[in-house]
């Protein structure tokens, strides 16, 4: 087969998934309800709202913030967010001088327990290819225009450490409750492609 002579088309992906599921089921290898339960679990427990709550707590509680920066997994576990494999979680603190942003160039690893399953843009070849090479231009294109004097540190999740960005608390949020603060922290801010804006919005 050469590149210009096309083979017959693949079975549609939904059919292929069904086929594997049925083949395994026919051999009695799928515990009843396992697939449904696991998919539900994923949607419930891997939620960027978890990371948002961690961030809000860190903004309000300096002692928690210190613990979080020292041991991200242990501090997140205080709020009930535990990774399956006692993950090593490193929290990256954004400051006026340094902006952190996370990628996984070789696949699409993320800290599921606090950031959730990664969004499509994070998994796209374009993001994976560009953010390590031209982060400033890429972030600008995504709507985050960082001043030249802010250094950018890109973290490639090439090993087993997982990362989460601790964004800067926006001005104008003095006196807000932890819940209200958590409501403005987006998944994009936890990855580092957005700042947190000091206005409430529906986090649907």
């Amino acid at each position, binding site marked *: 087969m050469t590149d210009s002579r096309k083979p017959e*088309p693949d079975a549609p992906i939904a059919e292929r998934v069904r086929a*594997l599921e049925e083949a395994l089921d026919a051999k009695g*290898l799928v515990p009843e309800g396992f697939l449904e339960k696991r998919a539900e679990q994923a949607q419930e427990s891997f939620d960027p709202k978890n990371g948002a709550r961690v961030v809000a707590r860190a903004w309000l509680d300096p002692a928690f913030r210190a613990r979080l920066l020292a041991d991200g997994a242990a501090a997140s576990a205080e709020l009930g967010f535990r990774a399956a494999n006692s993950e090593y979680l490193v929290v990256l603190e954004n400051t006026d001088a340094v902006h952190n942003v996370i990628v996984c160039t070789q696949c699409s690893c993320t800290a599921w327990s606090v950031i959730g399953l990664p969004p499509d*843009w994070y998994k796209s*070849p374009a993001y994976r290819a560009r953010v390590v090479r031209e982060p*400033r231009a890429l972030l600008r294109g*995504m709507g985050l225009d960082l001043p030249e004097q802010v*250094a*950018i540190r890109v973290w490639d999740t*090439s090993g087993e450490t997982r990362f989460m960005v601790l964004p800067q608390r926006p001005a104008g949020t003095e006196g807000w409750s932890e819940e209200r603060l958590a409501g403005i922290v987006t998944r994009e801010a936890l990855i580092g492609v957005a700042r947190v804006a000091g206005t409430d919005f529906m986090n649907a």
Partner: protein
Amino acid sequence: MDGIHDLGGMSGFGAVEIERNEPVFHERWEARAFALNNLGIRILEAYNVHEYRHAVERMDPSHYLAASYYERWFTGVATLLVEKGVVTRDELEARAGGRFPLARPAAEVKPIRVTPGAQPRFAAGDRVRVRDVHPAGHTRAPRYVRGRRGVVLRASRAFELPDLAGHALAAHLEQTYHVEFEARELWTDAAESRETVVVDLWESYLEPVG
């Protein structure tokens, strides 16, 4: 392997757009594919997560780029379940009613027995260089840092060496490091200013810089 998955620094891609209110799964089959990997690893214990990553890397480059994330994910799972003898490709094609693309076979990788020396070998602030190697099998040292010099930010934890675990070989625990590279060291003339990239690397990927 120097496969298509190793995308860091490749030019030619377009804009990255964020989908508003993106659902966790866009289609039912994505959720099933997600769960099937969990079944393969945790319930069937047919393979480990490193083998899963490598199976995705072994996809035909054209299929890899054309496929969505969960299609890549699923192709890795199906490939391993066929390779491990849990199901056959024939039975999958019969049930799917059509062609069922899988990843290409893995290269042969030899087991290595390592008696780890005193670890960690490096400490924060040490200057290191990523070994300039081209492994035929699974590795997690991206091409864009190979041969490049960086500075250790921190000795992280010890994890199984993926170069062995990715081929179902006995893998020792090995120290990992967060190593920071100046953009100019990685991209020379093309570098933007005031930028660094931190890469998480196993000890055997690194050598000291004198």
